[in-house]
Structures are given as C-alpha cells and as structure tokens.
C-alpha cells in the first residue's frame, strides 16, 4: 500500500469538510459522512486492487479521555493501514484507513 499517499488524502478531506468549523452536534453526522465518503472516493480513484475501509471519529473537545485501538487479521505483506489525527479548537478528528489486497 502506498502509505505516503494514504497519509495526505485523509488530511485534505478532513480539512475541506470541517476545516474552519466549531463542533456542532446538529452537523457532526453530516461531516462524518462527508469525510469518510471523500476519503473512500479518493482511494477508489487510485485504481488499485484493494478493498478499503475508512473509519472516522469526531469528538468534541471538553477534556474527556478517548482511547482507540485496532487489531487486524490479514496478510502483512500486502495489507496495511494508517491513522491520521486532526484537531482544531473545538474538536478532534481521527481518520483511519485500512487497505486489503484482493
């Protein structure tokens, strides 16, 4: 998996969707969908023989603790993932991309 490219695209997608915004409960669902869909369409455009899973978490900044983990059972030589963390003053956004060779 081309991890350099996978690193950049999610950051750009997050920035374009929620870039200048303040956390809003009424909009977060739509933001989340937009980020995951944009990431996924960028990945599918790469035209590689991979299946993809994009996971996005948006959390309001209030001082609460958040811990995430993932475990994968796959082929280490062909499959991979990358996690991107983004934040602004009012929220955190963590996007994780998993790619599995067909």
């Amino acid at each position, binding site marked *: 998996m081309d991890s350099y490219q996978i690193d950049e695209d999610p950051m750009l997608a997050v920035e374009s969707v929620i870039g200048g915004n303040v956390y809003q409960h009424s909009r977060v669902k739509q933001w989340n969908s937009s980020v995951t869909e944009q990431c996924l369409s960028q990945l599918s455009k790469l035209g590689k023989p991979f299946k993809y*899973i994009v996971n996005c978490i948006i959390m309001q900044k209030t001082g609460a603790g958040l811990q995430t983990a993932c475990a994968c059972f796959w082929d280490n030589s062909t499959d991979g993932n990358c996690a991107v963390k983004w934040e602004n003053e009012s929220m955190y956004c963590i996007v994780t991309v998993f790619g599995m060779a067909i």
Partner: protein
Amino acid sequence: MPGMEEFHTGSEGSFNSDEADNIVKECIDNVVGGDDYSQSQVNKWTASIVERCLTQLVKMGKPYKYIVTCAVMQKTGAGLHTANSCYWDTAMDGSCTVRWENRTMYCVVSVFAVAIA
C-alpha cells in the same frame, strides 16, 4: 447521550453479524465489565478488547480477513460521533458495530470482515 450515532455505508453479506455481535459483547463485558473509566488502564483495556475479539473471530475458522477497532471514551458529556465507509464486495463482506456503556464510559467496537477470494 447526544452524539452516539453511527452512519454506516457498508451492508451485510454472508458475514454473520449476529454471531460477531455476541462475541464482541462478551469480550467487552469480560474486559471492562465492572470497571470505572481509568486513564491509566484504558490503554490496556482497548488492546485487550481488540485482541480478544480478533482471537474469537479467527477461531470461527471462516475464510475472512478481520479488522477490529475499539474506541473507549470517558463520560463527561462531550459529543462523539463515529462513521465507517467501506469499498468492498457487498455480497461477501460485512461489518458489525457494538455500542456499550456503563456509568463512567462508552465503548464502541466495530468488526469488519473481508472475504478472502
């Protein structure tokens, strides 16, 4: 609690999400069942949850690759929203997400199963 929703664009195929659901619930209960949120332990909890779930899923012996993700959040009133989007074979691949909570924390575990061709 505000913000605990999920938007999910994948769909279930021949992956048995009910079975996975039960496995995940049992793993979460076993790991954090009676505990209060603890910053010093949460790292260990999330690692245990994903490892246990993965082990149980692999034991089913089905021809799938698995990804298990887990997020544990302290209950303080903050909003949290998670979403997943999947580009795969909708007939064969599938996922399931379990939301669990107790008095002091939320736990969201997602299992993705991708069929091996």
